[in-house]
């Protein structure tokens, strides 16, 4: 068994299947769709569906309770969520004045370890699935948010920045016949 002894490597190894599969998926989509925008949308959509399930797994693993504050939510999202699944902890930064908007800054993004964007697809938001996941996950905890890429290492920026905007607090569904 020639497993590398380096501990952070083992995470990589186990993460490889995921990032490679994701890569294959993106490449496939790029082949299938004409426009990069369509691909980005598709990725976001898929991300959403994943987020919806992933959040459950997250709560199952962590003892987290529901957040009643956006800042707190951001904190949990990065320190627990990202750490747990991607093994990285983005820094939360650039809070908007209204406190309803913040940026996740990843200086290292496991998804793009091996990726090099082809010149012909500079419009592609390779990791856009993350946005979808965040959106889906937060929606499950009654937070409607907008998530989008601000900058991407793949496109030359030195760090990856994802912007999250709080839209509104959703209510529990009211059963029929109640007011």
């Amino acid at each position, binding site marked *: 068994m020639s497993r590398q002894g380096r501990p952070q490597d083992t995470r990589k190894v186990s993460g490889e299947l995921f990032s490679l599969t994701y890569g294959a998926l993106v490449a496939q989509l790029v082949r299938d769709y004409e426009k990069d925008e369509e691909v980005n949308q598709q990725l976001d959509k898929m991300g959403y569906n994943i987020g919806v399930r992933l959040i459950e797994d997250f709560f199952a693993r962590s003892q987290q309770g529901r957040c009643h504050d956006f800042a707190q939510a951001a904190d949990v999202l990065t320190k627990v969520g990202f750490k747990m699944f991607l093994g990285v902890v983005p820094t939360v930064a650039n809070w908007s004045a209204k406190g309803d908007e913040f940026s996740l800054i990843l200086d290292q993004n496991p998804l793009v370890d091996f990726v090099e964007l082809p010149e012909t697809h500079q419009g592609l938001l390779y990791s856009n699935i993350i946005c979808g996941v965040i959106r889906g996950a937060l929606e499950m*905890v009654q937070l409607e948010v907008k998530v989008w890429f601000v900058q991407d290492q793949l496109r030359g920026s030195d760090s990856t920045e994802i912007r999250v905007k709080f839209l509104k607090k959703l209510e529990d569904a009211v059963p029929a016949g109640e007011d």
Partner: protein
Amino acid sequence: MTIYNLYIFDRNCSCLYYKEWTRQKEAGIPREEEFKLMYGMIFSLKSLISRLSIISAKEGLVGYTASNYKLHYFETPTGFKFVMNTDTSVGNVQDVLRHIYARIFVEYVVRNPVARPGEHVDSELFAAKLDDYIQDLSFK
């Protein structure tokens, strides 16, 4: 301990799963009605509590005791609601319900690719795992 039955609701009032073990009495109405009624009651109790609380509106419902049975309630941050009825001898079973959620529901429903979110749970595997768990609880 005696466990009568278990309801699992999702955030949109629909009962994803119902299972009874030693239920002694029927409500005398169609199941679907019963589910609606149960969800309604839970919903009202929640709002009752959140209003009556003098500390904050975050108050969570834990359950209630009636003369002959006890209702236990557990809700996930994502709005899944687990309602379990037992005999009155039973103490706090929050962790039991949590276990059902984290170790059984998530494992075999959420992570079951075939089960679509919001659909009624018909995974035999889930049912089996749940039953095993409940069974050996009952012996304790």
